[in-house]
């Protein structure tokens, strides 16, 4: 139920029974072959798994150090790893007899992935989204609506992702009898962090098998970006017991010392929010403060509790990369490999290039390319880094 002291279930009493119900149902399907076969079927035929582990030869040559491999989650349906989790949870919700899905979304990626699962399984779907984000991400709002989901703008607080989570929790407190709250990252009260990790671990299981097949050995490092941390925990988890460096890359935004960043592990403090004990960006009195990143998917003032645990245990390292560095990596990967990475994933690319340069040529770095960058073209264009139109 906890990762060391992290995680737990810091929720109002009324949510204890639905969380117990969810835990029980989740424990059952974890061991249920039929469920797992069905999940595999949808991951393969609907989402497009397995994803390739691609040797980025050009990028490797440019960097001139360790071999860089990319786990191509960007090729999944919807363009990101989010679908691994939404299909899993939606199937579970259906098995539990729930008729309705609710979810939070920041940039809209998880909202879109939930809307897809909702459409696929014929479930009513409502997505909470901060009203600021609704304004900023109009295309994703439109995509969700096209997919049949209702998008509900949230006016409270900072009108961003954390407030969307609050509002989804408020909905769930009143609707849990018929509704599953489909959390999009490895955050929230138990069993969410563990369940989301397990659904995302397919990334690491495949990557581990693939690298063994291609290289005949494990990589020296695995690198992934961390907002809430679901793509990172998904690729880390199957390597936790191996002698492999695990490196999570947070968003340093405009620089950690400017205060405008999303680096909860690097610059936050322990606290309790959204049902979990973890690291959060907050002031001295425990008021949660706004996060910033050029990558909307990293723009969350907290982080999944298992990452807090892996950091404190010294099992994983957590570093931070600025907006500018991520933008540069975005362009670099586009030019070198013809792959536009999501700005979130570009944080991982940036750091992987940095360490690969200092490693020897027979060493191996695996990067989780968690999403594709088409959604970020406007931001990248505005940054003027690659020239305008």
């Amino acid at each position, binding site marked *: 139920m906890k990762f060391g002291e992290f995680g*737990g*279930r*810091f*929720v*109002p*009493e*009324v949510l*204890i*029974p*639905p969380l117990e119900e969810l835990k029980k149902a989740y424990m059952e399907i974890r061991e249920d072959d039929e469920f797992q076969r069905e999940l595999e079927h949808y991951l393969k035929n609907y989402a497009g798994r397995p994803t390739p582990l691609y040797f980025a030869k050009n990028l490797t040559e440019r960097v001139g150090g360790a071999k860089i491999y990319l786990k191509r989650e960007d090729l999944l349906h919807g363009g990101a790893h989010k679908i691994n989790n939404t299909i899993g949870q939606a199937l579970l919700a259906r098995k539990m007899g729930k008729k309705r899905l609710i979810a939070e979304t920041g940039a809209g990626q998880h909202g879109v992935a939930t809307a897809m699962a909702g459409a696929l399984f014929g479930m009513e779907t409502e997505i909470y989204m901060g009203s600021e984000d609704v304004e900023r991400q109009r295309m994703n709002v439109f995509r969700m609506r096209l997919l049949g989901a209702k998008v509900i703008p949230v006016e*409270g*607080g900072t009108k961003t992702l*954390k*407030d969307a*989570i*609050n509002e989804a*929790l*408020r909905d769930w*407190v*009143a*609707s*849990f*009898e018929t509704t599953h709250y489909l959390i999009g990252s490895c955050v929230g009260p138990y069993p969410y962090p563990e369940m989301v990790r397990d659904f995302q671990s397919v990334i690491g299981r495949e990557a581990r098998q693939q690298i063994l097949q291609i290289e005949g050995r494990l990589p020296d490092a695995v690198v992934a970006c961390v907002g809430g941390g679901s793509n990172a925990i998904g690729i880390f988890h199957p390597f936790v017991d191996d002698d492999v460096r695990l490196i999570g890359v947070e968003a340093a935004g405009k620089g950690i010392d400017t205060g405008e960043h999303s680096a909860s592990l690097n610059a936050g*403090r*322990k*606290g*309790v*929010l*959204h*049902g979990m*004990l973890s690291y*959060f960006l*907050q002031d*001295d*009195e*425990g*008021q*949660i*403060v706004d996060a910033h990143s050029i990558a909307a998917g990293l723009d969350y003032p907290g982080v999944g509790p298992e990452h807090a645990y892996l950091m404190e245990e010294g099992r994983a390292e957590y570093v931070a990369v600025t907006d500018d560095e991520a933008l540069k990596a975005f362009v670099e990967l586009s030019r070198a490999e013809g792959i536009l990475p999501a700005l979130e994933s570009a944080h991982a690319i940036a750091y992987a290039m940095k360490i690969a340069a200092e490693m020897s040529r027979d060493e191996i770095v695996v990067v989780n390319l968690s999403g594709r960058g088409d959604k970020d073209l406007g931001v990248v264009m505005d940054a003027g880094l690659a020239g305008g139109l």
Partner: protein
Amino acid sequence: MPDSLEGFEMIGKSGKSLITFITAGDPSKNATLNFMLAMEEYADVIELGIPFSDPMADGKAIQKANYRALKAGIKLSDVFDIVRSFRKHSEKPVVLMTYFNPIYAVGIERFVRDASEAGVSGMIVVDLPLEEAGGYLEMCEKYGIGTIFLAAPNTSDERLMAIDEVSEFIYLVSTYGVTGVRDEVPPIAFEALKRVKKVCRKPVAVGFGVSKLEHVRKLMDAGADGVVVGSAIVEIIERLGEDAAEEIQRKVRELRGAIKR
């Protein structure tokens, strides 16, 4: 140090209790003290909310009160100042209602000690269920602060018994939902009240959505030992701001009318 138990013995024993809630610092530190004094004559317990950036168990009215208070720059030390000032005028128990992070951020012991020194009688921590409350309970016991836990209509008998052990009174949430004024007390509240009264030895106060004279009367008739009224008062503050004291007093007096001594 106030004897917290003495304050709470009023609930259930010497008749039925009216518990009224406002958010500290909404819209200012001074106003909060005035509002507390305005409620004092007719309320048995005053519940003071500590503003939090992410009030996930609260409906719109109290959410907005939280944001108003934070915008006014209220600090934890201000909340304790308010309680200290109130103590000079009244013996009525003051209960702090808060989310856990403001406690965790300053440290459980320091928070509880400061609360106790300010004259706080008890605390309700919305998002701290029993399983996570070990260290908190220990500190509250050490510093003589009463603890009050929430129960909901879906709380099992087994959990109710455990909550009964460590609560001054049971704060029964009337419904599946967040705080906020509602037209009716839902039937589920009455079923839950009946069960909680059977399982628990401690007095039971019902809150969430309780806003009208009629609600109070029905709940009292159904065996509640107390009611908690929050959003209905907070909405007056939203409307009248600094000048809300008189209207708040009128509202609390009216609700008092439904409670026989």
